[in-house]
């Protein structure tokens, strides 16, 4: 029998710390290189040299084109003098050999674009012949639909459908999409270059590791905090303070849920609040759905306030370079207004239910509820709470000291492991590795859509629709995001919209204020309130509620969620116009 190598708890703790430390170093080196970037080419010596040509390649949406093959042909020859590949910023540099040329042609080819030829002007040819450097104007390539386009597009649609129909685990579905894209790229690409989408190296460039490490760090932090029972205690305090007044209980719970969703994340908040809320509702003799649904609506709204409140904000913040303070300053006031309106709507909608609160439970059950609402580990709460407060300070001042949120999250996670002394095996379990893999696979799948041009087509279409008008752009973006978020899970939706909004931000006058990013945040999150499937907190709450014997039907949620969405999105839109 093989002897199994088992690491001791101490060794496991150090191993995890080393992994987190390496992640920190990686993050720090990406945000600020720790070593000088080596020049890609060595300078030519003083010997006679030929001229050079540089330029930049862009797609129709102004996005740089990476990986295009650029070749220079002279005097009608078939063999290229020199080749180069365009870089991430679309730039290319051709160092031509010394010689006299009568004519020079630049040939550019790249999968999913039409091959392009550029005949250089005589003056430019003369410059090159004289050994000088010449810069060509930016060149826009024209996209073309290829078999690879359909592979990438249909693979992504398949992933969305599989997730929506629950045929496969979300991560399995996303990995299937990646496997299809890469499989066709390598196998199909060898048969027909038009099947090629990208290789592994390019695929990984689309993975935003800032998001991965931020999510991973926060997972550990949240896992430690939630063990203390603080959320159950808060919910119980709401019950105690309301003294049987259901309307007051619901108001307090909605505020608690909203704030918690902003500081942790809204899915975790509902996972923690829903079970205790059900117990509180049963104790008061009211239908738990009349408390759960308002809570989840509040969590979707409140989570928008900060960078870390919703996965969609984390995606948006990282892509657009928006920090913790940006969301706090630019969205929180609007969120507060929307929350007030939401509370009033909910109290109006459920007024008869709240007034008809029935006979509560026995004293024994109330005592059981009190037990459920205890802080179970006060010492751990004190330490973890202190670390979390420090993290919030670093999130707020991070922009000033060049500390990216992912590093703050990793530092917080390491501090938790070192000081709060959590069981290392439990810590390894709480990191939701399958969800991290889902994010990685999602980034790659959306990257494939960018490579083949689907995102560009969408961006161009929306760009035409808004016609350079910022007001129209805000309205179209917010309300289309709100509408689509009701039917598509908002995480894949937001990931797909990032390059589209990036394009609109660059091209629509006035959008440099980042208003469109905040519009995407509002639409994607608040729109998730419209239907039961609109966002993850809705789904997990419905799942918990069903397991307790209280099923939230699609229609029942819609009757509350849809008007709530309209109200909050209207307020959110008005806030954007006021703020920007």
């Amino acid at each position, binding site marked *: 029998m093989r002897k199994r190598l088992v690491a001791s708890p101490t060794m496991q703790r150090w191993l995890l710390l080393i992994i987190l430390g390496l992640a920190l170093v990686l993050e720090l080196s990406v945000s600020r290189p720790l070593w000088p970037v080596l020049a890609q080419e060595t300078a030519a010596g003083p010997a006679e040299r030929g001229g050079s040509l540089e330029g930049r390649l862009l797609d129709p949406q102004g996005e740089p084109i990476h990986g295009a093959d650029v070749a220079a042909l002279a005097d009608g020859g078939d063999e290229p003098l020199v080749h180069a590949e365009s870089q991430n910023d679309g730039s290319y540099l051709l160092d031509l050999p010394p010689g006299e040329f009568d004519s020079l042609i630049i040939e550019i080819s790249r999968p999913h674009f039409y091959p392009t030829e550029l005949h250089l002007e005589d003056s430019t040819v003369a410059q090159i012949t004289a050994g000088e450097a010449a810069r060509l104007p930016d060149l826009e390539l024209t996209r073309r639909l290829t078999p690879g386009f359909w592979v990438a597009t249909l693979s992504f649609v398949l992933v969305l459908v599989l*997730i929506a129909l*629950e045929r496969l*685990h*979300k991560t399995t579905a996303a990995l299937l999409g990646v496997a299809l894209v890469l499989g066709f790229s390598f196998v199909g690409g060898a048969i027909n270059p038009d099947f090629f989408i990208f290789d592994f190296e390019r695929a990984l460039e689309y993975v935003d590791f800032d998001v991965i490490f931020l*999510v991973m760090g*926060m*997972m*550990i932090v*949240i*896992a430690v905090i*939630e*063990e203390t029972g603080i959320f159950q205690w808060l919910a119980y305090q709401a019950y105690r303070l309301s003294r049987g007044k259901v309307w007051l209980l619901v108001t307090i719970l909605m505020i608690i849920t909203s704030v918690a969703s902003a500081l942790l*994340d809204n*899915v*975790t908040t509902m*996972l*923690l609040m829903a*079970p*205790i809320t*059900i*117990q509180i509702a*049963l104790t008061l003799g009211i239908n738990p759905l009349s408390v759960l649904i308002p809570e989840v609506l509040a969590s979707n709204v409140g989570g928008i306030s900060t960078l870390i409140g919703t*996965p969609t904000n984390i995606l948006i913040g990282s892509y657009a370079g928006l920090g913790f303070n940006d969301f706090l300053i630019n969205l929180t006031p609007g969120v507060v207004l929307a929350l007030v309106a939401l509370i009033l709507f909910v109290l109006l909608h459920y007024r008869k239910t709240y007034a008809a609160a029935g006979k509560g*439970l*026995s004293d*024994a*059950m109330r005592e*059981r*509820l009190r037990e*459920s609402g205890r802080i179970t580990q006060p010492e751990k709460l004190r330490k973890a709470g202190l670390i979390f407060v420090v993290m919030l300070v670093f999130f707020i001042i991070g922009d000033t000291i060049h500390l990216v949120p992912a590093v703050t999250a990793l530092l917080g996670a390491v501090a938790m492991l070192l000081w709060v002394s959590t069981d290392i095996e439990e810590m390894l379990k*709480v*990191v*939701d590795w399958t*969800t*991290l893999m*889902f994010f990685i696979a*999602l980034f790659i799948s959306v990257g494939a859509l960018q490579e083949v041009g689907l995102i560009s087509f969408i961006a161009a279409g929306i760009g035409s629709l808004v016609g350079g008008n910022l007001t129209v752009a805000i309205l179209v973006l917010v309300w289309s995001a709100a509408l689509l978020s009701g039917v598509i*899970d908002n*995480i*894949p939706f937001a990931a797909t919209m990032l390059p589209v909004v990036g394009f609109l931000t660059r091209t629509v006058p006035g959008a440099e204020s980042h208003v469109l990013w905040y519009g995407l945040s509002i639409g994607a999150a608040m729109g998730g309130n419209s239907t039961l499937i609109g966002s*993850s*907190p809705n*789904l*997990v709450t*419905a*799942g*918990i509620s*069903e*397991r*307790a*014997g*209280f*099923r939230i*039907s699609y229609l*029942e949620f819609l009757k509350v969620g849809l008007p709530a969405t309209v109200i909050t999105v209207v307020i959110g839109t008005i806030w954007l116009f006021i703020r920007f």
Partner: protein
Amino acid sequence: MSKILCATRGGEGSHPTQDGAVALAKERGDELVFFVVVDISFLNQTAAPLVVDVEARLEKMGRFQLAMAQERAADQGLEAQAVVRRGHLRAELVAAVKELGADTIVLGRPQDREAIFDDKALAAFAKGLQAVTGAEVLIL
């Protein structure tokens, strides 16, 4: 003394089933066990990170609801036990029947919105359960 295993989820929709199980237990002089399974497979639907020990939270909620069922049974003059398991409903039911030595399983009749099965599916489920466990399966 024989044992009745009543699979329940709590909520008013489960009250008729619980009351029926209590009445049956009193009539036969059997022991009654209320049974809840914590199944978190619904979390696979969501694309968001999950770091909470959801099973532990749902188990606590399940025990709360079973305590309510036990109180209701006590009000009707019967002392009932409560068991919470984690996993999938069918597998845990089968295991519990064998472990607890239950002779009878009571399942809840679909109550409209709270139902996870319709009548036909429930009947098929019951038939399968009976075949595997050998216990009598009643739908109340």
